[in-house]
């Protein structure tokens, strides 16, 4: 039996109906969704409705027509799963306020597989550094190549990079949205949204057509934390919403790991603190697999590490990796500027360095 049962479907639409009122209730605070979503339908209506909304909500509950809703869903290509039927990931049962229904676009098999094979959530800041974006992309790509599902939130920055990496390796990827599954949010990622809907899976707690609310982002984060066995943080600032996902994962007893960032970088302060507090270090997809499946046979030295560098090139590479400016690179390598530039151009054509637009050089990864 596929699709959500009538009750769950009604519940899903009720949350959608009350979403603006919940937003009004919570105001501008970024608090976690409180116990609200764990309440029964009637209790929820009473709790957030207000006098008029309560009547409206109760009338909605009484007059809900499941078949009409199903016809609507079919029209916009959205399918559903509910907690009372097969095809609903039992991982979500760990949540006290698990969503009754999930609204989905894309591959149904990915949702079913979550209970059988571990998946990884990759999250991080929207304002990621080029390095963070690179690492997130490589993680998605490596996990995709290893046949593992990458879960993220399709936000700008790290999220989108992880999705793109997975798609790039023809791997499985799931985007968990804070709005309806058919709404590309943020708009700049609409291409990515379409692609994930075709090659992966987009899922959401809110019904189609719903916009995102301030409260629905932390609510979405709880789903991301619950669906994966491991949450990997790539660059998160100290006040980043990413850390909300980490909190959920820890409460649920799921593993949390982080990618090291430069200690002087604001956007990596939160993720570096996690490492300091004992989170495992993730350098690449191999480390993720080790973390989930136990240490594998020792892998060959990283393919990106070139062996035939002369000592000068080595020093140039180190200088760029250390984030030095041009004059400091010259001083470090002991070269006059013109020769340093020559060396940098040579390393670039070998794929070891690349230019960050107009803003200098950086180490290329996975070249």
């Amino acid at each position, binding site marked *: 039996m596929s699709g959500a049962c009538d009750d769950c479907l009604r519940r899903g639409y009720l949350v959608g109906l009350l979403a603006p009122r919940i937003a009004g209730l919570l105001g501008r605070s970024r608090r976690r969704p409180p116990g609200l979503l764990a309440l029964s339908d009637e209790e929820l209506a009473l709790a957030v409705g207000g006098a008029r909304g309560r009547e409206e909500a109760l009338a909605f509950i009484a007059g809900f027509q499941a078949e009409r809703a199903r016809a609507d869903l079919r029209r916009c290509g959205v399918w559903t799963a509910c907690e009372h039927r097969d095809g609903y990931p039992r991982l979500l049962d760990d949540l006290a306020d698990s969503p009754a229904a999930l609204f989905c676009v894309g591959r149904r098999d990915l949702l079913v597989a979550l209970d059988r094979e571990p998946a990884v959530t990759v999250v991080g800041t*929207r*304002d*990621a*550094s080029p390095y963070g974006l690179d690492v997130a992309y490589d993680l998605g790509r490596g996990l995709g190549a290893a046949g593992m599902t990458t879960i993220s939130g399709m936000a*700008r*920055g790290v999220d989108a990079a992880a999705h793109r990496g997975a798609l790039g390796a023809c791997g499985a990827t799931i985007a968990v949205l804070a709005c309806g599954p058919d709404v590309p949010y943020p708009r700049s990622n609409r291409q990515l949204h379409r692609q994930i809907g075709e090659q992966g899976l987009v899922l959401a707690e809110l019904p189609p057509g719903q916009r995102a609310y301030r409260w629905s982002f932390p609510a979405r984060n709880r789903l991301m934390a619950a669906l994966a066995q491991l949450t990997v943080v790539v660059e998160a600032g100290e006040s980043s919403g990413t850390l909300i996902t980490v909190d959920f994962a820890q409460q649920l007893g799921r593993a949390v790991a982080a990618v090291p960032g*430069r200690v*002087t*970088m*604001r956007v990596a302060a939160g993720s570096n603190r996690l490492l300091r507090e004992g989170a495992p270090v993730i350098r690449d997809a191999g480390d993720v697999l080790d973390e989930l499946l136990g240490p594998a046979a020792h892998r060959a030295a990283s393919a990106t590490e070139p062996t035939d560098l002369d000592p000068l090139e080595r020093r140039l590479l180190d200088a760029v990796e250390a*984030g030095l*400016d*041009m*004059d*400091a690179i*010259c001083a470090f390598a002991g070269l*006059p*500027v*013109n*020769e*340093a*530039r*020559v060396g*940098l*151009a*040579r390393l*670039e*054509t*070998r*794929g070891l360095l*690349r*230019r*960050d*637009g*107009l*803003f*200098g050089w950086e180490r290329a990864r996975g070249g």
Partner: protein
Amino acid sequence: MLARVPTFALEGVDAREVTVEVDVRRGLPSFTVVGLPDAAVREARERVKAALLNSGLDFPQARLTANLAPAWVRKAGASFDLALAVGVLAASEQVGLAALDGLAVSGELSLGGELRPVAGALAIALGCRASGVRRLVVAPGSAAEAALVGEVEVQSVPSLARLVELLAGEWAPEPPRSHPGARVPASAAPDLADVRGQADARRALEIAAAGGHSLLMVGPPGSGKTMLARRLPGILPPPTNDEALDITRIRSVAGLGGGGLARERPFRAPHHTISAQGLVGGGSRPRPGEVTLAHRGVLFLDELAEFARSALESLRQPLESGRVEIVRGQRALRFPARALLVAAANPCPCGLGGERCECPGPSRERYRVRLTGPLIDRIDLVCQLAPVPAAAFRIATAPGESTAAVRERVVGARGRQQARSGAAGASCNADLEARATRAVAARATGLEPLIDALDAGVLTGRGHDRVLRVARTIADLAGRDDVQRDDVAEAIAYRASAGAAR
């Protein structure tokens, strides 16, 4: 009785010969000016009449018709006063027609009959030379500038009365002395030795000067971008005589002239709120824009990302072709615009850049898009500047190389370029045409980095020729005839990346 007097009208930065024809015949007294005069030219009637009477000359009580030929060129300004007055004098037989042979006049008149200087005297003198006029009469204030052109006898006449004496052979003016123009004393000009550190940017500046290549400096406020840019004119070779005439002519047309010959290359730094018209010139009566005022010198665009997109867009064609073409009505005007473009920008809106940047992601992205906007593929050299460490100011670091030392190398490199391209060729490597660029490639011994970079996608096809020209300059600076591997690699390293040029 009919008289003809040649004079000149400014078109862009050139002077076009205009013949003032004056016809005097009996009839009801009147004075008509035809031939597309503007309001200022029509008012010349009153000035001419008063000037003649106040100089003790006759204003004929007859029907006067003046025509400014060619009739379809719009005439503007007061510079036709003198020609009209001389035409009236000749047509009314107060001066002999023979005395006007081979003579052109240009000047504004006061009501008292004194001659006043006009803008663009040098352009007018150049126009005389071009159309074979041997003598030019101007006001004393214009004479020194006009006399910069040899081959034309410039006569400096203070008043209409003196002019009549001159034409009657009763008086001769002192020949004007063209003074060479005040040189900026070397101690006052900014020197490269003032700049601490920034070895990389200095190198880029030297290459830019040696080959005329455009340069973009990216760095936080206070890293010395403006300081370096202001020192660029100093390391360029001094203008040749023709270049100096060019510079002076443009300054004079724009009303910025100091009278003498320009000895320094111009440095123009327009504010980023400038309009497209201000940058490339225009207006109903077209005036030169900043890129023309910077001709043979440096055009510095500080805060490149803040300029209006339309303004930068309008610079593309002039930078490529070295001139601005403005079409007004049925006429196309040409302004020379061979300026060396130097731009500066902060790495991000907050200016700090790198890991200290505190800009929110979207605003940083928007800024980057603006910065890599319309001009980026016209930039040959990009260099990044870091903030100068405070230590460099406190500790007595060795001062950087001086302007004089760098200029010597630049002059040497330019000399090699001119010797190679000969009289017919471009004045510097940046101006090399496609065929000449291919010739550079044919003579190079190490093009491998270029091919590798194209293969690796580091370089676009469009960047290919520009890299070759920069590599040619780097070899010139090293005093080598062949372009070697390392020259090409260094040139590639100064390009904006292929990604930024998209």
